[in-house]
């Protein structure tokens, strides 16, 4: 992982998470802004997958366990689609909050993934 990109991913997912939680608690049903914010987070996670596949060959291998890292990353990639599916089938303010919960989870997971990649020893 690369620090700059980690900051982007953590930042965007945290912001999207807080935004969705706030809008949900304020009574907004899932809409373009909230659903697309999760789509954006998913795109960033997919880019992270590509980067993590290439990085070791480019001289940036993980210091920690690759299995642990990939478990986190695959889980992170699965969460936004599930959250979006939830929001589209149940159009209530609470599913907007659920979108936020999913995005915040990804922010935390990304931080952990960065630790596993750059600091933690296998």
């Amino acid at each position, binding site marked *: 992982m690369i620090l700059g990109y980690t900051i982007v991913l953590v930042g965007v997912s945290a912001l999207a998470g807080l935004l969705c939680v706030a809008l949900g608690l304020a009574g907004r*049903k899932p809409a373009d802004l909230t659903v697309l914010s999760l789509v954006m987070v998913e795109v960033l996670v997919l880019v992270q997958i590509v980067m993590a596949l290439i990085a070791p060959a480019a001289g940036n291998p993980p210091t920690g*366990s690759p*299995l*642990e890292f990939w*478990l*986190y990353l695959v*889980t992170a990639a699965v*969460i936004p689609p599930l*959250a979006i599916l*939830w929001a589209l*089938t*149940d*159009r*209530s*303010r*609470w*599913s907007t*909050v*659920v979108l936020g*919960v*999913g995005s915040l*989870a990804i922010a*935390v*997971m990304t931080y952990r993934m960065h630790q596993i990649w750059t600091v933690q020893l296998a």
Partner: protein
Amino acid sequence: MTASSRPSRGVGRVLVAVYGVLALAATGRSVFQIIDRFDEAPVAFTLSAIAAVVYIVATLALASGWRRVALITIGFELAGVLVIGAVSVLQPGWLGLETIDPFGREATVWSVFGAGYLFIPLVLPVLGLLWLRRPRAEARA
């Protein structure tokens, strides 16, 4: 799932979502620890696996309205995080752990009362039990 603006049902859905993420996290970590380093702390990691399974059942119970199953699993989780959290701080050796680092190699969901998971494993069961205290008709996410 039908749309509902009744706070208790909606809050119940958020509970299901957070429990689902926690179940996912606990299961992933548990699977990894057992595959990678089971012999380092077999007691702790076995407890971790049991916790993960119970979290999964709790999530399903909350989502499907199995009130009694939800009460039992969430109660188990609360007892677990309190007891194992205390043991991990006071007598880590009982779990086969050398340190009390909730972020370490042998950390589990309940280490130091769930500190490694922002104390969500500690707060969530309390919220879950409070939500389940509602009248039977409403206690379904």
